[in-house]
């Protein structure tokens, strides 16, 4: 199993990825310590529409933290596909299955790899968040940072949920068919969104204010906590179910590589 996981790690150029993330994290920590947002630096202070003084350094580091979470989720999803499609591309599956690995080991390794990667990405995000917040002044950025963090666990869970839907498709149908289904679903959502823009009630978005959202989150602390507690439990259950389904169908599949 460890061998299969290491193979995927190498196939995803994992060492390079780890090196880049480590360097970025060190740079982020050092720069944050050098430029704390709780000191009012000349040229970095602006006033927003509400008349509140905002430190641009804080905003810069908050955006860094936010992108870490955003791109992290993107990588979790794309790596979930890539570790399967790369095996097709380099036609290694038949070779792997001729070794002392069962199909169960093979499918399990894919799911474990993605779950481990999601855990690692989320941990790095938390480090960035802690570093960013430690030197942040009391301003809108701080409230917004807490607001985003409140949704970070559900967001990672949602990413894993989507990945858990996609992985069986890529494993069973291969890249061509799975991509076709995926693009069809995305296009259907896109068309529905465009339809809403034309015919739906847009007043909801006109009244949308980030402050209102933050206030809403503060007022619904219990519901949000419940969401943070229940979403991982639900995701773990669904992820396991996805693994069982993928395994059931994959065991019946006879052609391992797509020639």
């Amino acid at each position, binding site marked *: 199993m460890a061998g299969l996981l290491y193979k995927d790690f190498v196939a995803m150029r994992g060492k390079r990825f780890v090196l880049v993330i480590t360097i970025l994290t060190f740079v982020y920590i050092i720069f944050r310590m050098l430029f704390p947002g709780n000191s009012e630096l000349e040229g970095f202070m602006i006033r927003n529409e509400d008349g509140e003084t905002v430190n641009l350094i804080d905003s810069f580091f908050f955006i860094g933290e936010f992108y870490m979470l955003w791109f992290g989720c993107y990588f979790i999803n794309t790596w979930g596909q890539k570790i399967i499609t790369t095996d097709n591309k380099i036609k290694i599956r038949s070779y792997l299955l001729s070794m002392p690995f069962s199909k169960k080991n093979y499918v399990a390794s894919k799911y474990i790899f993605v779950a481990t990667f999601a855990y690692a990405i989320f941990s790095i995000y*938390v480090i960035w968040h802690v*570093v960013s917040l430690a030197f942040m002044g009391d301003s809108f950025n701080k409230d917004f940072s807490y607001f985003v963090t409140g949704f970070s*666990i559900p967001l990672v869970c949602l990413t894993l949920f989507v990945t858990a839907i996609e992985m069986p498709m890529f494993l069973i149908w291969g890249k061509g068919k799975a991509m076709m289904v995926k693009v069809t679903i995305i296009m259907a959502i896109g068309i529905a969104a465009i339809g809403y823009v034309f015919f739906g009630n847009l007043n909801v978005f006109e009244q949308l204010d980030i402050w209102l959202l933050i206030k809403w989150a503060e007022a619904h602390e219990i519901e949000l*906590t419940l969401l943070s507690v229940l979403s991982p439990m639900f995701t773990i259950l669904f992820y396991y179910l996805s693994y069982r389904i993928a395994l059931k169908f994959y065991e019946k599949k006879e052609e391992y590589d797509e020639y």
Partner: protein
Amino acid sequence: MMNIDKKRLIIYIALSFGLTFLWYIITVPKGQSWDEMSNEMQSFVALGMLFPMIAHVLTRLITKEGFAMTGEGSMMLGISFKNCKWVYFVIAILLPWVYMEFGNLISLLICPDMYDAEYYKTLEIDKNMLLLLPINAIISGTIISFAAFGEEGGWRGYMMPKLMKLTSRHKALLIGGILWGVWHAPLTCIGHNFGTDYVGFPYLGIVKMCAFCILLGVFLTYITEKSGSVWPAAIMHAVNNAQPSILRGYINPDKVDVALGISPNWAGLLISIFVVAVIFLVIWRKRT
């Protein structure tokens, strides 16, 4: 000639202590105690928990020990549920809740004056949230367990197996616990865990931390050895740090005087952990 394991252990301890103490020198604002720091700054300083694992990796690099994931002499990063090993994960998740509630119950028995029906309000916790607190602590502790993994990856993943090789189990647990407790000394000196206002500050605090680490180390080492992985210990440590307890919201430690630097709620927790540690030692003895 010095035993190779002893050499490696010394390198590990030097790196672990050196890097962590350096981190605290850099990050702890001068003259500030733990309580004077903002919550955000406390979390930042607590990132020092990652250094035992970093020291583990560096030691393996320096000593060319290799980076095997599973098996003897490995980093113990693998996870196996075979042969009922999943039980250790369940223990890791639930045991801190059990001994914390048990400890709080003992504290209330020792000192009923500490009971405060509305203390949770000072902790800024809603009454409904209080009931969710243990589950939330368990889930969030498990998900955000990387910091505890930083410690356990070093102490349980490297130091304890080496100590067990060099000496008897009981001695290893004692020495390991003391080292782990002393490693916390910089934080104890700025008032983490026990505050700064007690007789014998900070030395008595360091001694108390060592006692706590020795006892906690017993079952953390046990589940690591039996599961062959540091993950159950990391999860247990993380859940322990998240303090999963409902009774905590009803115990006001400010209502009683602290004698010899030991408050009743700390005494309760210590007794509770002592009982659990003894049970684990007996089981360990029987199963070996």
